[in-house]
């Protein structure tokens, strides 16, 4: 980003326009689309932003992000449903538990890079899935159900879909600003440099592994935050949250939207979840159609939709 272009909330002018368009969409869409579906997408956008921080800006490909999403979902669900603690504490519990798990996973995995890093994260996530299936507090195959939505700061009752939609809308916009800030902070500057040339960053005195670990923990925490919100909105945490499918979906949403772009996770999440939602009536054919769509995307838009758009804009301007 050219700093001289900074215009609004840390966004460059074109991104500020994209942000404004998204905000307008968020305001209008619940009158046209099903708000619960939209909230599912918004949660997934936050999850995809978390993943983008790691893959897009740190250059680490994790196949185990479902572990953080699942941990966040279960811990938030347990805190709200079993311990009866309020919304804020439950979301905080989900976020912190994912961050802690991220610290452990990251500490182990960053010792390797590339495919080995990805395989370690996959193995650790599979172990986490097994643990989630075995320990009693997760509810096994049933998961944790009937998680209450509670209220925001004890003042705003969140039981209505409309109310929680607007809360979720504000949170999503806040997360997008935060995500952009991380990427365009002094810390983000180091991440972007180490992704391109880690050897040179080391030779300039940067402890690259510590920056990678910090990025991993931030990414895990944000994934846990997304999962906590999803658990509160839908009232349940299940094995799907912690399964391999969730890890794959977040990779795909980044690939389709555009890895290493601020709005790639937004577009990618919309595409992935819309395919699932609108193709649901076709049953098992969904997988075939999804497969074709992904193959086409990878062949035609290697930089993803937003990446391609950015390229076009640069050519035009």
């Amino acid at each position, binding site marked *: *980003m050219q*700093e001289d272009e*900074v215009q609004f909330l*840390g966004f460059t002018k074109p991104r500020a326009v994209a942000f404004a368009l998204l905000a307008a969409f968020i305001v209008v869409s619940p009158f046209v689309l099903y708000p619960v579906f939209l909230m599912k997408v918004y949660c997934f956008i936050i999850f995809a932003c978390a993943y983008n921080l790691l893959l897009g800006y740190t250059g680490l490909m994790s196949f185990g992000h479902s572990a953080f999403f699942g941990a966040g979902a279960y811990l938030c669900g347990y805190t709200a449903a079993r311990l009866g603690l309020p919304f804020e504490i439950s979301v905080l519990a989900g976020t912190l538990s994912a961050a802690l798990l991220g610290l452990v996973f990251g500490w182990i995995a960053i010792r390797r890079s590339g495919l080995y890093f990805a395989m370690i994260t996959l193995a650790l996530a599979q172990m986490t899935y097994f643990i989630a299936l075995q320990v009693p507090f997760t509810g096994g195959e049933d998961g944790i159900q009937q998680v209450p939505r509670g209220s925001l700061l004890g003042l705003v009752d969140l039981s209505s879909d409309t109310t929680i939609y607007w809360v979720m809308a504000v949170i999503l916009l806040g997360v997008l600003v935060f995500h952009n*800030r*991380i990427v*365009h*902070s*002094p*810390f*983000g*500057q*180091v991440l*972007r*440099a180490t992704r*391109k*040339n880690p*050897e*040179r960053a*080391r*030779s*300039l*005195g*940067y*402890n*690259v592994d510590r*920056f990678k670990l*910090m990025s991993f923990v*931030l990414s895990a925490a944000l994934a846990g935050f997304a999962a906590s919100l999803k658990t509160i909105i839908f009232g349940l945490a299940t094995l799907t949250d912690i399964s391999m499918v969730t890890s794959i979906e977040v990779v795909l949403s980044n690939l389709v939207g555009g890895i290493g772009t601020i709005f790639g996770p937004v577009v990618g999440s919309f595409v992935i979840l819309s395919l699932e939602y609108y193709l649901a009536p076709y049953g098992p054919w969904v997988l075939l159609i999804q497969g074709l769509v992904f193959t086409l995307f990878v062949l035609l838009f290697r930089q993803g939709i937003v990446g391609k758009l950015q390229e076009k804009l640069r050519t035009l301007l």
Partner: protein
Amino acid sequence: MQGTIISVRRMTKSFGAFVAVNGVDLDIVEGEIHAMIGPNGAGKTTCFNLLTGSLPVTSGEIRLRDTVISGLTMDEIARRGLVRSYQISSIFPDFTVLHNVRFALQQKRPTNFDFWRSELSLRSLDDRAMALLEELNLGEWSATRAGDLPYGHKRALEIATTLALDPQVLLLDEPTSGMGREDIGRVTELIRKVATGRTVLMVEHNLPVVEGLCDRVTVLARGQVIASGTYDEVSKNQKVIEAYLGAEHA
């Protein structure tokens, strides 16, 4: 003459049965330009990698003044003031020239984990970055994407980022490799300029550059030091002549 800033004793590096560096002793005097030369495969770059922590030593000891630095990681050694450049120029191609230097300056901040702060806070480093670019005649290129720079300028930029850390010892790995005559002259002049008041250790193949620039020369062959002294001394050394030309020509 000032004291020794780097002293290396019995430095050895093995890769399985192959001994790339074998019991090297080396003393670098503070404020001097010291060259490490030798035929291909002599172990010069491996020595560089060992000195900067890019590779761990198999045995032996490296000291920076009184501190043992062998065993430290690359970033720890860099923070202690031993900063290197690379044989193939190593820059951040997507950053502008100014941002490359600023990124090096950024390392000296108390923390770089402040993810909540805007990168605009780094603008306070721009004046110093610009001054370094001016020093290396790169001022007019400051807004250029580093990947688009001509080759000779990339080497100059790499030296600028290295200088940004205000190193105690500057290690330059073949700074003129792959350059045309004009660029060689430019970079040689830059090295002479930046070496004022600094200690420089360089690996270099170009002997006229070494002759014109360096106070002291160490010659390596097959992983061992075969001669050390001024350029005139080592160039008359029989072992050096044999190593470069082969015994039959000596």
